[in-house]
């Protein structure tokens, strides 16, 4: 057992309101620079939709991630032979138009144009060439466009749905969508690291953050192809690749990453997971159906004395073990089994987990009678002439998961390599918690029904309350448990503190003459 610690994340999708505050926070700090304008280390997509870059999930186009090769795995579009062979021209490299051409407007025209008959306009100009351009795409171009022929219907996750299922999803009056915020997953088997010919990309041992050394990157651009999530970006101006750094300077100082700190919906959680690095290969090379399960197996119980002993022997600090025990991520992912990784079939073992959204699933497509419900509401609230749009009767809430408005298969394609059972298990738990809380707060649900729901999902009322607390009420310090040790040792990640040991005051500005051996 090779116990290592990983800073990992949970995003609770039912809570995301699609406000893009996270993206802006990240952009302001890190990517508001020449060559990086088009990069969104954090972006929020509308699902169903094609995402950013367009259709990134379709690895027939982008050749990202790992694929099975006999018993083992190999990189789909990069690696030693393919990477070096394609070094002069990488046939699988996305180009800027797959993202969008960054633009601004000639605002000065509004002020400086000479007087004339026409209203002056601020024409869009390209931030690459400075020439006027027609904007064809921009950040979140498919925002909220569920059902649109260009975006939603081209979602790669629709591939194995039946035409009937697809049509049902995009029926105008029943259409639904949800938001999918994405950052680099800081994977355990990162394809970007494996693909880098220069060895510029590495995973930090202490906390698992994946970084690109800007002085070593030579712009061979293989990571852009290899990352199946398209979270390694090529800076066209500096000729170096860049990616999300999980705000490591903030994490080292004990602050939450900017996207998480600013999250309006409070959907984001960050904490330590202890995992067994010896199992990476086993999990990454599992069959599609087993890859989620094996990844969950790798995550170790931080309360288990054996794990603690092995962690200590491996140099994991006590404060990190303590943080692992308090980790909200551990609870969501392992204890409650509520969260799943995005596209585990890419086999990079992503360490960002998502609580799948219940909402579009729950809203039933069945025609139901809401009249009793409506009677309890006040005059304004009860005006809801459609009986079929939202099933607000509490009776059938639990049953709706199986004939949901979003086919479960769609969710499974996103979060569990197509295995609907994994997704259904999680959604049922979420539903049971809702039923329980409904009973506690409103009281219009049969207690027996709640008890049955909790029992069938292996939850106790106490656990359901805990889940409710962490989901809805959790304070900042509950959501972000950052290992304390990093604060005082942060400098050691940058330089070796032993070098200045014994120096006085601010230290020596220049080295003295060497004395002695």
């Amino acid at each position, binding site marked *: 057992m090779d116990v290592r610690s990983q800073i990992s994340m949970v995003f609770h999708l039912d809570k995301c309101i699609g406000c893009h505050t996270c993206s802006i926070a990240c952009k302001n700090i890190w990517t508001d620079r020449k060559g990086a304008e088009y990069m969104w280390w954090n972006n929020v997509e509308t699902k169903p939709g094609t995402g950013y870059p367009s259709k990134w999930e379709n690895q027939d186009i982008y050749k990202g991630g790992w694929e099975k090769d006999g018993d083992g795995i190999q990189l789909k579009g990069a690696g030693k032979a393919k*990477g070096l062979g394609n070094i*002069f021209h990488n046939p699988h490299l996305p180009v*800027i138009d797959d993202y969008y051409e960054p633009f601004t407007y000639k605002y000065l025209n509004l002020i400086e144009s000479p007087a004339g008959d026409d209203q002056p306009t601020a024409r869009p100009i390209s931030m690459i060439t400075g020439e006027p351009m027609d904007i064809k795409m921009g950040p979140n171009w498919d925002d909220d466009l569920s059902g649109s022929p260009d975006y939603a219907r081209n979602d790669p996750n629709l591939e194995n749905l039946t035409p009937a299922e697809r049509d049902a999803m995009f029926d105008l009056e029943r259409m639904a969508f949800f938001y999918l915020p994405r950052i680099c997953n800081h994977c355990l088997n990162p394809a970007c690291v494996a693909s880098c010919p*220069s060895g510029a990309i590495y*995973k*930090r041992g202490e906390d698992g953050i994946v970084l690109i050394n800007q002085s070593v990157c030579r712009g061979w651009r293989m990571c852009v192809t290899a990352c199946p999530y398209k979270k390694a970006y090529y800076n066209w101006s500096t000729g170096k690749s860049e990616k999300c750094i999980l705000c490591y300077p903030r994490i080292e100082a004990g602050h939450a990453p900017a996207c998480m700190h600013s999250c309006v919906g409070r959907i984001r959680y960050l904490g330590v997971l202890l995992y067994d690095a010896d199992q990476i290969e086993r999990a990454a090379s599992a069959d599609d159906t087993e890859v989620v399960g094996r990844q969950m197996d790798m995550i170790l119980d931080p309360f288990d004395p054996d794990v603690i002993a092995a962690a200590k022997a491996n140099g994991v600090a006590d404060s990190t073990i303590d943080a692992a025990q308090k980790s909200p991520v551990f609870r969501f992912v392992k204890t409650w089994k509520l969260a799943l990784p995005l596209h585990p079939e890419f086999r990079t073992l992503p360490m960002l987990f998502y609580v799948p959204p219940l909402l579009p699933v729950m809203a039933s497509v069945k025609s139901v009678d809401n009249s009793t419900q409506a009677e309890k509401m006040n005059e304004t609230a009860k005006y809801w002439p459609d009986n079929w749009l939202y099933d607000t009767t509490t009776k059938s809430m639990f049953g709706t998961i199986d004939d949901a408005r979003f086919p479960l298969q769609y969710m499974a394609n996103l979060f569990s390599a197509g295995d609907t059972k994994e997704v259904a298990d999680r959604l049922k738990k979420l539903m049971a918690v809702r039923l329980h809380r409904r009973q506690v707060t409103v009281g219009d649900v049969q207690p027996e029904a709640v008890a049955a729901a909790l029992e069938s999902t292996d939850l106790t009322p106490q656990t359901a309350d805990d889940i409710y607390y962490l989901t809805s009420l959790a304070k900042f310090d509950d959501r972000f448990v950052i290992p304390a040790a990093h604060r005082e040792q942060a400098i050691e990640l940058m330089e070796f503190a*032993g070098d200045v040991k014994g120096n006085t005051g601010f230290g020596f500005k220049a080295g003295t003459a060497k004395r002695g051996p």
Partner: protein
Amino acid sequence: MLNLFLFVGLPYMAFIVCTVGIVYRYRRKGFTVSSLSSQFLEGKELFWGSVPFHIGILVVFFGHLTTFLVPRATLAWNSIPVRLLILEVTAFTFGLTVLIGLAALMYRRFTTPRVRAVTTGMDIVLEGLLLAQVVFGLWIALGYRWGASWFASDLSPYLWSLVKLSPETTAVFALPWVIKAHIVGAFTIVLIIPFTRLIHFFVAPLNYIARPYQQVIWNWDRRAIRDPGTAWSPTQPRNN
């Protein structure tokens, strides 16, 4: 006097500037060392330029290098006319490949606004120099046969004499101007390597072949750090 500068002064200057420049830039200005690929801005035309150019120039470069390093072996190989012919034809073909690739790259650079946006003056100087170099090279191959042999017998000794610090220049001084221009061009390119994107040739990622795929870097020696006895042992982090 000019000859002396071009064939004795320039080569030494080029060698020194190139070596010092590369070491300095690599160690102190690592952030500037990149292939500066523009494939991300334009990917289709690049294929028809970059691939022939790189393959061609690698073959031509290593061909020149071999003739310089082992002139006797080259002469021995060339002693049978068929083999000489094969060598010359191969070299010419790859020279032509370089020309085609370079022309495609230059065409792309001048006609694609996005690529122009990442073009520096140095890129144009370099492409101009390379173009002249290739054209002269092809001209020499056609007009002054057989280069593979007289390079080995006349130029290789001159280059070796430079290496041995006792320049023998009689042979070069007597060469036709095209060949002289080709030689001066070569030294000039060597001279400007550290100031151009050509430096990416020296960071070709050959170590990738032997490297394990995954890389984990520990800032601390994770096992020793819990041991008070070794915590201060001077191990520098490897990543900066």
